[in-house]
């Protein structure tokens, strides 16, 4: 009974938040809102530049963090025995996961923006977010790889497979649902992040034209709209669009993974 009501409470709470934001925001979302860049500091016009900026920053982060994270996880599980080095790597990754995002922002600002002269840009933002989501991807991939039945490895070796072939043909496909969970969590964090992105990608309203352009992601946009009292309506509109975007990414990723996994079941 207690568990049942706890679950109900959580679901009701979540649904009401989503419903509240959608009901406030959806009326703002018009064709113009989706296809124009903001004008008058965001009081009018649309948020196209922010949508593009969000997608670009997220894409950079995922492209950087996925191979690094998956590679690290495979190194830890398949290519080395438990040792002090693996303990240090795992400990570092876990510590990284617990650091507040503003600290990543500060690191990104000092290292990417200033030291590497990348400036406030999509690239700086994406790299910072990549570092930030790395621990999540390592963690989920590692767990997924450990869950692959050990016999699969032996079978592949016994059929003349090398370690590399076994990883590509058996382990990665079997661990794919877990890996994609990590990537989706990472996407969620990128899309939702404000503090670290303001410090590294800036808050420019114009359309980003290259990886070196500054940009304002959607989360940053509605943070500024709401905080500076520019337009609550448009803040809700942006938030609603963000929720829809995350839903769509989740659904598409799920469909892709299921289609892939279904072949082996």
């Amino acid at each position: 009974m207690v568990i049942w009501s706890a679950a109900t409470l959580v679901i009701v709470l979540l649904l009401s938040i989503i419903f509240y934001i959608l009901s406030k925001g959806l009326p703002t979302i018009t064709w113009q809102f989706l296809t124009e860049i903001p004008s008058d500091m965001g009081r009018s016009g649309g948020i196209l530049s922010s949508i593009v900026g969000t997608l670009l920053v997220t894409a950079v982060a995922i492209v950087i963090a996925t191979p690094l994270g998956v590679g690290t996880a495979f190194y830890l599980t398949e290519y080395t025995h438990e040792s002090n080095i693996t303990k240090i790597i795992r400990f570092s990754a876990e510590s990284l996961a617990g650091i507040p995002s503003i600290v990543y922002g500060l690191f990104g600002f000092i290292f990417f923006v200033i030291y590497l002269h990348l400036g406030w840009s999509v690239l700086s933002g994406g790299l910072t977010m990549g570092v930030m989501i790395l621990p999540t991807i390592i963690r989920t991939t590692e767990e997924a790889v450990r869950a692959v039945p050990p016999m699969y490895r032996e079978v592949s070796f016994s059929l003349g497979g090398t370690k590399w072939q076994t990883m590509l043909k058996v382990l990665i496909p079997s661990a794919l649902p877990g890996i994609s969970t990590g990537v989706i969590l990472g996407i969620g964090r990128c899309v939702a992040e404000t503090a670290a992105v303001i410090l590294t990608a800036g808050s420019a309203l114009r359309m980003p034209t290259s990886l070196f352009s500054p940009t304002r992601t959607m989360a940053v946009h509605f943070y500024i709209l709401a905080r500076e009292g520019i337009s609550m309506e448009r803040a809700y509109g942006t938030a609603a669009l963000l929720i829809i975007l995350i839903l769509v990414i989740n659904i598409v990723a799920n469909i892709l993974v299921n289609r892939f996994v279904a072949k082996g079941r």
Partner: protein
Amino acid sequence: MALTQNPKIVIKKLNFFYHNNQALKDLSLEIPANEIMALFGPANSGTTTLLRSLNRLYDPNAKVHLTGEVLLDGQSIYAPGVSITELRRKVGMVFEVPTPLPLSIFDNIAYGPRLSGLKTKASLGEIVENTLKMAVLWDEVKDRLNTSAMRLSGGQQQRLCIARVLALEPEVILLDRPCSGLDPISTAKIEESLRQLRERFTVVIVPHNVQEAGRVGDRAAFLLMGTLIEEGTVADVFAHPKDKRTSDYITGRFG
């Protein structure tokens, strides 16, 4: 019958250690070609270790080491420079637990050939059909090659595993208690396919009980605590065991 002139596998004074546990002691054995050799003995007698040492599935590393020699066609398989992947293609292995990979039936069998670079659908299809026929599974699955191998029954999965090994075109097939989890009908089918296979391959099997050793083996070797007690044709070992421990084990007085 004397030992054949050209044994396929010669094992010379093999000692095998896990950490400090010795699993095989000074074991010497010759395995002739085109016969079924049954390695039998009670639990922990070293049969599985011996089997796995024949295709280096226990590769010497920090935890495991061995001394002595294993010769395949006169070549040491533990010599430096021997390609482990090539060795494992020549000496295939079927495990105790049927383990299809989470792929379709077709892809499971094509797994080995694809690893060695074979890509064309037609030749893969031919291999799949031939090996499934040899493993006495073709008629049951020919209409659903693209469905997942995980949906087959245990006995079918084990025959699939045998077909998958055959697809490597091996010279030797090792089987580790392949029928231990299966019903009598599945067991009969697998044993039937083994008897057909020995005409083209050398088969080494660890049977899951004495009766199976007697049913499928041409020759039998009895191991106890990592030591070879006696070896000979099945008829000799079972009807006239030379060692009292062998006769005690066969007649069920221990083990």
